[in-house]
């Protein structure tokens, strides 16, 4: 296990991110602060290798049924918790790395923690 300091805690406020490319010979990593919790993702989209972590943050639009004239029945869940790849807009849940349009697709996540003032990612050797 290798301990890598990504940033000082104040560099990534809630809603913020820091991207390091390339990351210790790997493909690059993005660390996100989502509502006060930190997550680290690989900066390569598992769909077509787009620079995933440079995408926009969104929520999820959901509907239980097609909208009727009286009730749109549209909801937006988890604003800021979903990352969309800049190339093809595939959405990923930052907290889990899960792709929201294809359950078999997942972006690699890394354990991330705070150590004093440092944001630290632990890498497998």
């Amino acid at each position, binding site marked *: 296990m290798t301990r890598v300091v990504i940033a000082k805690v104040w560099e990534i406020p809630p809603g913020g991110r820091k991207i390091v490319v390339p990351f210790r010979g790997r493909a690059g990593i993005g660390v996100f602060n989502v509502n006060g919790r930190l997550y680290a993702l690989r900066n390569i989209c598992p769909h077509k290798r*787009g620079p995933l972590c440079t995408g*926009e943050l969104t929520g999820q639009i959901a509907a239980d049924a097609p909208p009727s004239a009286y009730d749109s029945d549209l909801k937006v869940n988890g604003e800021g918790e979903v990352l969309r790849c800049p190339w*093809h807009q595939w959405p990923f849940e930052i907290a889990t790395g899960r792709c929201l349009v294809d359950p078999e697709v997942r972006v690699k996540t890394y354990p991330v923690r705070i150590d004093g003032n440092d944001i630290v990612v632990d890498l497998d050797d």
Partner: protein
Amino acid sequence: MTLQLDVTEQPQSTAKTKLAVIDTDIHNYDVYDDPVFNDIITKYLATEWQEYHKMIGMRGHYGGGYPRAQPNAARTDAWPPSGRPPGTDLDFMREQLLDAFDMDYGILNPLAGAGGQVNREYGAQLARAINEYQIAEWLELEPRLRASILVNYEDADLAAEEIHRLGDNKGFVQVILVARTQEPLGRRKYWKMYEAALEYDLPIGIHFGGLGGHPLTAGGWPSYYIEDHCGMAQAFQAQVASLVCEGVFEHFPELRIVIIEGGFAWMPSLAWRLDQSWKRLRAETPYLKKAPSEYIQEHFWLSTQPMEEPRHQAHFEQLLEQMDGGRRLMFATDYPHWDFDSPDRAVPTTLPLETRRNIMAENARQFYKLA
């Protein structure tokens, strides 16, 4: 629209693709309402049309449109630091596309709505202005680029005029139209344009898009963008059927057509269906000397993007088997658009090396007569 992010280095394509790459669909101009696009037009538009452009401007048919979350239908990382719209900054295009993927050549297909203008002469002047822009700001600056001659295809006289004006310029390698025209492209009103293109041995590229004044699908107006986006294959199929059935290839045996951004999996089944009907209905089009599938085989090429992605890989291989092993397929990225296909991921690596080499570059090298 640029995201302000702390990125230390461009991550793209650290591992270069080993195969040669020719990109047959790059956009260096687009139809969106943008001051830079307007500047380009006013810089190159003929003096006598400046006043018209300022006073009236573009008027066409209603119906198209792209998702608002995807401004200019571009990859969100394709906005150049210069602030210009995606695709219009040569340095950034070099960095993000030509250099990043070590491309041999790229073919520019400007989209300017020239043929969709209800004022035919203005449409032709728009096309001319964009072609001048291509010469001055692209072809003269970057030897890896070739361009398509934009024309107002709805008026074959005006289109032919523009082809004659530029046909001897070796920077131009095809004439570009869009799929949704006013009438099917086999009809005689378009023939003068084909005749002119053939004089310079230029193929005709039919690109995704256009508004001919008809509903976006053959079944009427759809509610959703996804139906519009995926429904374009209907327009392409109508064009293939028309070009074949009207006898265009009997009249112009050397004419070559390339379907750009139209998909390709539908082509074999369309050919089968046409053959089947032709056997019963031969007397209706007695000037056709061959089965429709033979004309298709001889006269049509297709660009790969957006790549067909069946659930099972084996189905892709079966598809290529139905399509002459991919000898008519030419790789394209559609840069800077949001349905971009990356050269290092688009063509399945399970295909034979020879097939991949042909699709990625050699078919296009031959088709466009590139070195």
